[in-house]
């Protein structure tokens, strides 16, 4: 067997693939966060909670309404988006004029409240959610056993990432949003309904988190805590990618998934912090992030 750094090539390929799969979760989550941050200048600390909401929505749809995975994949993000829109309209929107810190603080409180509520009603340890029958099982790739569901995760998240990227970069929407973050009043004075735009954006970002939650439900235990530690890592991904850069968030998401995967092989204890090490290095060398425009 050929070896690289004492690891058989076959095994290494498996690890790379696994990293890529995890990267697709990061990409999807950081995409939502980047949309919200890049456009609203709100550091959405509730992103992890909204991800968890998506997973729970799928679970409840199944257990209470008997609604299957495929429908949940559409309904749950919609539900999360709707909830987010409501929050934005009634509360978050009052904070835009203030320092971004306040948005962070508010969403932090929101995250605590949401997680606390679910913990109160569902307990901390969570519930299982079975993958849809069509996606169970695994294929043998020779170098590894690939669960079919994981393959689907990669495809679904790639498709959604590309769609969102096109929506924002290739339509005028993106320009409106970027301008609105700088000077909402002026953009509104040009005739754009900025408040509505911001509501929709926040809903979109949260909806993406919800979507990731549904995707994650069959893989991880659906638990109120599933998103609580995620936010800080995903936020690091967004920063490394370059804040405000949608493409940066996506690409960095995949990349860091792979890097983290490799760390799990060579220095597993450090796999939780490797992202921060990379973040520090990137910010020192390229302050605007890998894909960010220079400030």
């Amino acid at each position, binding site marked *: 067997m050929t070896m690289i750094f004492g690891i058989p090539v076959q095994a290494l390929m498996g690890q790379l693939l696994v990293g890529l799969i995890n990267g697709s979760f990061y990409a999807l989550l950081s995409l939502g966060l980047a949309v919200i941050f890049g456009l609203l200048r709100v550091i959405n600390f509730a992103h992890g909670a909204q991800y968890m909401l998506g997973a729970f929505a799928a679970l409840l749809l199944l257990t209470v309404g008997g609604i299957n995975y495929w429908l949940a994949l559409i309904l749950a993000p919609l539900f999360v988006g709707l909830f987010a829109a409501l929050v934005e309209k009634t509360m978050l929107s009052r904070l835009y004029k203030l320092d971004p810190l*306040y948005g962070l603080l508010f969403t*932090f*409180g929101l*995250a*605590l*409240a949401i997680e606390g509520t679910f913990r109160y009603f569902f307990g901390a340890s969570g519930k299982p959610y079975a993958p849809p029958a069509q996606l169970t099982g695994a294929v043998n790739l020779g170098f590894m056993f690939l669960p079919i569901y994981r393959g689907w995760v990669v495809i679904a998240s790639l498709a959604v990432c590309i769609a969102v990227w096109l929506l924002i970069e290739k339509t005028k929407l993106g320009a409106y949003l970027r301008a609105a973050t700088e000077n909402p009043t002026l953009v509104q004075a040009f005739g754009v309904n900025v408040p509505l735009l911001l509501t929709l954006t926040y809903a979109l970002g949260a909806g993406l988190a919800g979507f990731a939650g549904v995707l994650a439900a069959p893989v991880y235990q659906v638990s109120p805590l599933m998103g609580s530690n995620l936010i800080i890592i995903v936020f690091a991904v967004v920063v490394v990618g370059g804040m405000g850069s949608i493409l940066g968030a996506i690409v960095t998401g995949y990349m860091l998934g792979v890097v983290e995967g490799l760390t799990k092989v060579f220095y597993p204890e450090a796999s939780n*912090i490797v992202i921060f090490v990379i973040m*520090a290095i990137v910010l020192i060398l390229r302050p605007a992030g890998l894909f960010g425009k220079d400030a």
Partner: protein
Amino acid sequence: MAAKSGPIPTDHVAAHPRAGQAQLLLVALALAGLVVAPMFLYPIFLMKLLAFALFASAFNLLLGYTGLLSFGHATFFGGAAYFTAHAVKVWGWSPEAGILLGVAGAALLGLVMGAIAIRRQGIYFAMITLALSQMFFFFCLQAPFTHGEDGIQSVPRGHLFGLIDLNRPMNMYYFVLAVFVLGLLIIRRFVNSPFGMILKSIRENESRAISLGYSVQRYKLGAFVMSAALAGLAGGVKALIFQFATLTDVTWQMSGEVILMTLLGGIGSLLGPIVGAGLVVSLQNYLATSDFPVTIITGVVFMVCVLLFRRGLVGEFFATRLGRKLGFRSES
């Protein structure tokens, strides 16, 4: 990230002529309150409150007066706690020497972190400090002297200057109170000094300050190290109060908590972080042994505070007529 405040009315309500006296009276009352408080309240709780109030004040020195949002202050607080605890427990140092070591260690960590982070601004600054503090967390997790998850337990409080037995709760309490007051005096002098004036102007318009000939990096670094050292003071004291140094104190959540305290109370005023810390600590303390779901309530309190008291509780009070009559200015 400098705090923006809303449009400022030009016609300030004039401070009452005896506003200065009124403020002095308030401070004296507060001090008197703190001196007698342990007769009525659990001293450990009070000490915790003071330690966190000092921590938040140290943090506010940076955020409120320099406009730098550090997301890594747990490093200084928790790091100092470890240094103090180790010195006192393993090396058998006296408590005051242990605390001084904590302060020095925190200042050194602050110098390193500051030197790296200070070249960046706003959210990038916050992120670098976060990244560096995560690395410090990892160091603490792996380094043998911290004893990982168990932490450094049963740290002896010892005798202050070899004389005063800190194992007696009242002695310990007045020691902590003295440290707290000292810390606040240092902060107060620092922000109301010519140096503080320059910090303020850097926060307001950095390139203008450069063009006036100020090397803003050095000023910022100075403020950063000062803030780190004071956070270390709080951390060292905390280690003695609870006789404990743990990973909790170096996690990012701790950095987040101090941000919360400061913002809830109101940045940019001396009183704000103290009130914020008081609120958060009391809330935690009360909820920990009550039947309420802790996180829901904490979360809702934060949301409400952010929505209703944007300038922080103290900032809102200062902005009321009474506050302005008393001569307080919401400074941010």
